[in-house]
């Protein structure tokens, strides 16, 4: 017995030494290469002025702003498009997934064809298709098409009315009330009714205040000269990325929802029928709340995938984090540091989203733990 332990122990020690030795050699080799190519090392470049600006950012970015600020702006862009894609994918995926479980075989086949078509095409190709469509088929900048409610579509993107001042406050309040309502629904009876009621009333008051004086509190896009001025413009790159990723994600989310709905025991459907509930009511009140529970882990995986796929902005020219880091890499030559930054950010976001979704599993109906 002692003999085998010593042999095992020696083998492990040797293996560990070989690994450490290989790592040390690799680090030394890299440092030598960096010295030969006269590339600087370390993260000092982050505070130097970037010398480039992005085509669109949440907050204004100047040429003199540092690389760190440019990277942060890229991260903001990535988050923006990932959020839009996740929302779109969830809504569309819900519809298509429920269509896959419909009673009529026609709807099942149609939704099935949708899912199969999208899953068998590369996501890069779908993004390029959407971009070519938005650039090619959209009306030219000089003659934008009015879509009603103050929205305009052109090759420069989708121009929406932008709230400023109190209107922004009102919309923020509405959004907050909506989130509180969703939380209350998820946690069922534990949110006191007074909180929910207060949230709704205050949001309604703010909304009425804002809407009563539209001109002063909204920046409406107006045709001025050769293009539009004012408003909030969603660039064609953002639209292509959000729509393309949204549709791509929706096909996978549809499959997740289909599997979750089909995993609910057949007896539940029969009980609904016995109670006289029609299909829609049964789905809404009995099946979907139970399906949400089993759908959450694969849904987490799909949201993480969508977040990773937001890095494809570089393909359509959207300045996301990876695109900005690529520019920084080309300018400073410090490839290792930039790639390390991208890795750390993505892994951190991975962890954050996975942790949040696991926590929210506790609130899903039917879970054993009380919120």
């Amino acid at each position, binding site marked *: 017995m002692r003999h085998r332990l010593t042999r095992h122990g020696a083998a*492990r020690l040797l293996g560990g030494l070989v690994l450490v030795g290989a790592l040390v050699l690799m680090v030394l*080799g890299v440092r030598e290469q960096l010295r030969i190519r006269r590339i600087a090392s370390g993260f000092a470049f982050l505070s130097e002025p970037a010398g480039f600006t992005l085509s669109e950012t949440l907050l204004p970015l100047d040429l003199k702003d540092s690389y760190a600020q440019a990277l942060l702006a890229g991260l903001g862009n990535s988050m923006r498009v990932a959020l839009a894609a996740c929302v779109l994918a969830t809504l569309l995926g819900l519809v298509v997934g429920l269509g896959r479980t419909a009673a009529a075989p026609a709807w099942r086949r149609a939704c099935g064809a949708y899912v199969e078509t999208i899953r*068998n095409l590369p996501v890069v*190709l779908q993004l390029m*298709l959407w971009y070519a*469509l938005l650039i090619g088929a959209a009306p030219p900048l000089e003659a934008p098409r009015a879509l009603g409610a103050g929205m305009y579509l052109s090759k420069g993107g989708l121009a929406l009315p932008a709230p400023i001042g109190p209107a922004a406050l009102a919309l923020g309040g509405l959004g907050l009330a909506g989130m509180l309502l969703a939380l209350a629904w998820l946690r069922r009876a534990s949110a006191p009714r007074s909180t929910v009621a207060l949230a709704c009333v205050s949001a309604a008051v703010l909304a009425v205040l804002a809407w009563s004086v539209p001109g002063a509190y909204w920046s409406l896009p107006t045709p001025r000269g050769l293009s539009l001025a004012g408003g909030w413009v969603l660039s064609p790159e953002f639209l292509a990325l959000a729509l393309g990723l949204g549709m791509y994600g929706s096909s996978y989310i549809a499959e997740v929802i289909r599997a979750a709905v089909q995993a609910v025991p057949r007896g539940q459907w029969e009980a609904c029928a016995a109670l006289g509930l029609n299909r829609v009511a049964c789905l809404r009140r009995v099946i979907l709340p139970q399906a949400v529970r089993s759908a959450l882990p694969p849904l987490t995986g799909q949201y993480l995938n969508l977040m990773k796929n937001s890095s494809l902005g570089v393909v359509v020219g959207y300045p996301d984090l990876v695109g900005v880091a690529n520019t920084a890499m080309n300018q400073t030559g410090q490839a290792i540091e930039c790639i390390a930054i991208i890795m750390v950010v993505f892994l951190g976001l991975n962890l954050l989203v996975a942790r949040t979704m696991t926590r929210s599993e506790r609130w899903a109906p039917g879970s054993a733990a009380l919120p």
Partner: protein
Amino acid sequence: MGWTAVAAALLWALEPVAAWALAHAVWTPDPAACAAAAPAGACWGFVAHAYPTILFGTLPPGAHGRAALGVALLFGLTGISMHPRAWRAALLLLWAGGAAALTVILGPYSTQVGGLLLTMCLTLVGCASGFLLAIPLVVGRMAANPLAHRACRLYVELVRGLPMVTVLFAASYVLPLLLPALAMTPLARVTLAVALFEAAYFSEVLRAGLQTIPRGQMEAAATLGLSYLQTLRVVSLPQAIRKMLPALVNNVIGALKATSLVVIVGLQDLNGALQLALGDAGWRPYALEGYLFLGLLYFMLCYPLSRYARWLERRFQGGPS
């Protein structure tokens, strides 16, 4: 009721698309006619003009026949490998022979491979190398040795948490710094990136398969005197691979779609070749038609594979597709 509603919805939505794509379209490679028909009609003439570039990349026209033969050879080999009757050791010899035949067919043009042939080679070589790398990864992941266990787990979690774009950039920019002595061509670097990326995903699939094998089999093998590695080689891994084949094929489909990303690092796969064809200013407004043609090609490559995965699932597990 269902069929009429769906048919009506589809007709309403697809009528303008059909008008653009079929009724008013131009089928001859004539830029003037295309310009006259746009934007009401599609310009399929661009596809008629550019399909050699898309399919074969930068190869000169005399070599197109060789590339087409190479593609047919690869399709034939893949078709043979798909049937379970062919899964024996001789299949590896067949593939080795096929690889040699491919180099002979391509002859002096082997360095100029592009388009469809490049996509297929990248997928096949990348997935094969990735699978070979995945086996030691999964063995290390399930080993008792804490160093091996942690190192493999770190690698898999790291690679799975990153987008493919990042792995491609790392391979293109960091590899020359790490291993300067190797002086790899861009194609070799990209193949290595695909192999490293797919290895993590394959190893997770294999790990899931290994975990479903009953513990009693390992104990029986130990009783027969087989070592840990011998048990894996003879008992566990063959069963795990067979059980997880549908999931592995799904990963191969994913790898095929991921090769479309190499256009970012400048390689001329199907996507890159289309960008090459679009470099001609006269045809640039018709990019949409080019992407639709590319979509059709990718669909024709991926859909049979996904049907094959479902057929495998039904055959080996008897479960619903």
